[in-house]
């Protein structure tokens, strides 16, 4: 069985098979019984619970005393008391947009020409070797945040699942990314002004268009050509998405003054704001909490890496959470080892964060901030689930099983194939061990 799985994963990874091969069970309906379920939802933590999955969605979550006497499912899995969590959601990485850091041909995350319309999801590679490896850390989906262009607004993020399938992109262009703060050339003030001006111009254009359309309603049809001219540009459409709150604005900023300026912009333009980086957010945690703004930050960056980040600390996630801020624990630019997100959450717990808050910081908080139908174990949610050998944050723990949209995932990566090759008994050169 083990060998079959390995061969399967080799074929899958090395030959780039288009679909997961038949040895991976693809059940239509699943019952996971006798699990300790961390729902990250109203039901909290349930022991000896059962989760039902059908057609890729969670159809029932039964606590111990609610489990029906007979369960009907194509596959029934006895969790034997092990922990079942929602799949973890990575953020702030370049997954599928980069293969080898020092090989520029394999980079698709930035472009000089990129502007607010930049849609890097078109470049997403679901067959990247980084994805199978990330799954080993219980990651089932990711908010990918490309570098984009050189303007203040660098482009747009997108959301993928980690199935490795060609239809992995769940939400293209789901949020706009802006980059503020310290700059080698020029002043940070210009960046803030540019962002503010662009929003203001878009709002003015919208108001004007609204007036025009209400005027148009009163009068008879205007000249067709003039109407064409008022059609908003692609950039304006994206800005309008920000102004309507439809699209979140993810803004990188570390220094408290930049964050405060962003909070003002949020208030003025009614933005759906998410702060990224936010090293010194802890200085103004009450203001951020009051503004109901989500903070996406590293749990392990604790050094004063710049004059904007003098208050980086291992306790920042806990402090912000205590102050009532919704925090997302992010990978902070890391792409190769995003499977370590669970350890980062563990470090946050060791430094004062409640375990349930840490779990929410890599599941439900991401889903809530970006309107994803995942991150919780609740009826109707995508069946992105992870069964763990023990405490998900512990180093000794491993992923025992994973489902994305109800489909069982391979937990083997290229790294496993290499290990198997170099630990196998053989008299022949290793190249013959496949």
């Amino acid at each position, binding site marked *: 069985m083990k060998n079959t799985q390995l061969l399967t994963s080799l074929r899958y990874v090395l030959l780039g098979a288009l679909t997961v091969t038949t040895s991976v069970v693809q059940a239509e309906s699943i019952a996971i019984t006798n699990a300790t379920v961390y729902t990250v939802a109203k039901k909290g933590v349930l022991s000896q619970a059962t989760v039902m999955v059908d057609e890729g969605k969670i159809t029932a979550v039964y606590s111990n005393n609610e489990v029906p006497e007979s369960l009907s499912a194509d596959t029934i899995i006895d969790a034997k008391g092990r922990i079942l969590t929602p799949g973890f959601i990575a953020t702030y990485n370049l997954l599928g947009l980069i293969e080898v*850091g020092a090989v520029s041909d394999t980079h698709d995350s930035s472009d000089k020409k990129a502007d607010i319309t930049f849609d890097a999801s078109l470049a997403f590679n679901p067959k990247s070797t980084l994805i199978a490896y990330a799954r080993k850390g219980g990651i089932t989906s990711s908010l990918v945040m490309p570098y984009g262009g050189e303007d203040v607004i660098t482009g747009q993020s997108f959301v993928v699942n980690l199935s490795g399938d060609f239809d992995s992109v769940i939400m293209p262009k789901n949020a706009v990314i802006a980059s503020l703060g310290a700059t080698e050339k020029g002043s940070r003030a210009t960046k803030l002004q540019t962002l503010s001006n662009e929003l203001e111009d878009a709002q003015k254009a919208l108001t004007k268009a609204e007036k025009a359309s209400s005027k148009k309603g009163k009068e008879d049809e205007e000249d067709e050509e003039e109407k064409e001219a008022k059609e908003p540009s692609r950039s304006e459409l994206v800005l309008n998405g920000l102004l309507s709150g439809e699209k979140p604005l993810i803004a990188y900023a570390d220094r408290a003054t930049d964050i405060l300026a962003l909070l003002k912009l949020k208030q003025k333009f009614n933005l759906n704001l998410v702060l990224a980086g936010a090293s010194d957010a*802890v200085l103004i945690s009450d203001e951020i909490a009051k503004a109901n703004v989500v903070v996406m930050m590293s749990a392990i960056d604790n050094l004063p*890496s710049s004059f904007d980040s003098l208050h980086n600390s291992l306790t920042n996630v806990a402090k912000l959470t205590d102050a009532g801020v919704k925090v997302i624990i992010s990978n902070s630019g890391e792409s190769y080892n995003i499977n370590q997100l669970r350890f980062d959450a563990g470090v946050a717990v060791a430094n*004062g964060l409640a375990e349930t808050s840490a779990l929410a910081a890599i599941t439900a908080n991401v889903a809530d901030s970006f309107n994803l139908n995942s991150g919780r174990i609740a009826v109707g949610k995508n069946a992105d689930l992870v069964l763990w050998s023990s405490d998900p944050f512990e*180093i000794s723990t491993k992923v025992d099983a994973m489902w994305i949209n109800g489909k069982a995932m391979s937990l083997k990566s290229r*790294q496993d194939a*290499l290990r198997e090759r170099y*630990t196998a008994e053989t008299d022949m050169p290793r190249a013959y061990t496949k």
Partner: protein
Amino acid sequence: MLKTSLPRNLVTSNSKNKLTNKLIRQSISQFISKKTSFTILTTVMLSLGLTACLPNEKQDPKVGINKNPYPSTYQALPAISTLLTNATILTGTGERLNNADILLVNGKVTQVGNDLLAEQATVIDMTGKWITPGIIDVHSHLGVYPNPQVESHSDGNEMTSPNTSEVWAEHSVWPQDPAFQAARAGGITSLQILPGSANLFGGRGVTLRNVPSETMQGMKFAGAPYGLKMACGENPKRVYGSRKVLPSTRMGNVAGYRSAWLAATEYKRAWDKYDSDYSAGKNSEVPKRDLALDTLMGVLDGEILIHNHCYKAEEMAVMIDLGKEFNYHSGTFHHAIEGYKIADLLAANGNCAAMWPDWWGFKMEAFDMVEENVAIVDAVKNSCAVVHSDSATTIQRLNQEAAKVMYRANDNGFALKEEDAIKWITANAAKSLGINDEVGSLEAGKNADVVVWNMNPFSVYAQAEQVFIDGAKVYDRFDEKYQAKSDFLLGQQLDNHVSKVVTQLENNSTTNAATKPANKK
């Protein structure tokens, strides 16, 4: 007589014409053997620009190379005799002692075992705690690539020539790097600061004690051998290839190493000859000093250890042979991502391999990572597997870096225990740095570098609670008195937030160590 009769300019070396010198030396011995008169000899020597002298002449003062011009001024912090009791102790020698005690006296470990008695010592009950040797990182850039990461302090790599053996990382160390304190809070007691990897020869590394100091010398590990940073692979060929300077290929890399070792071999021969001639009473010409060659000669003399940034199996194999070609040991391979492919070769040749548990992908030479690399290298007899950080972040959790290897390996057929894995960040690291006689394990006579952990250090929740260097407490998680702070952060970092959470943690900690007076048991 000869000395005074020879013009000063003739006493300088004439390295451009070694053949002529050789012929001259031969003719001298011929003259001497024939007992030719001094007058004739003097004339011949003057006419040929002769440099060597006769045995019975008056010798100039012996010229030597000061091998320690920037000596350590490190002094252990104030210490008291301490008996730590009832802990789980990982000795670093492969042993785990349960419910055990350790006695620290005069900066040394004097006893490790069960039910120890110590009349004069302060006894601290460590029930529930784990004790390990001080953690050692063989690959760090703290102080030379410090935080904040500003250009003004970016002093880790002299990227102006493929061979900068003349530079010493210690001359770039900024002791106020706040990362030293953060590393101390993670149990780091000794660390090697290396130059970067852009050059074939990056210069000397220095091993430091992780104590706060205003000077580099105040941190310097007295007696620790210097390291020489070498680099294989992509970095040197990229940096210099883009400038159209050798090397632009891996074969260019190796040609660069070989040329340098050739020059070093000549240099060493010149100094050895000077020394032996001088011992023989001759007033020999002093070889011209060359800082770069001083360092390489130190390697050939076995005094400086090689620390070689080298990821790939085939390159490590070449570097091993390069060492044999020029008669030095190829030392420790750093970032040995492909160590697992040649684990037998590394062990057979006595190389340490310093590795990350799981960094990969950022370069082609880092593409073939396996999470069990350290364990596979370690599994061979006489191996020396080390877990290193190369990071101001992960240096703070080297225990967890080792844990990742141990658990992933055990998921895949290994049966490693905590007492095995701790060696990768203590005893084996000390061996790599040539300081294993003093540190790296908890045995009687070793320096009292000790970390007390709140729990099994291979847990993600583990915290170093107390750290001792040479028996002196240098860090205490629950006592601000033992939490040093960099000048840089003083007066501009607001503390109130930090202390709040730590106080909470302290209140929550039911197993906080209680200090009580002596005469236990």
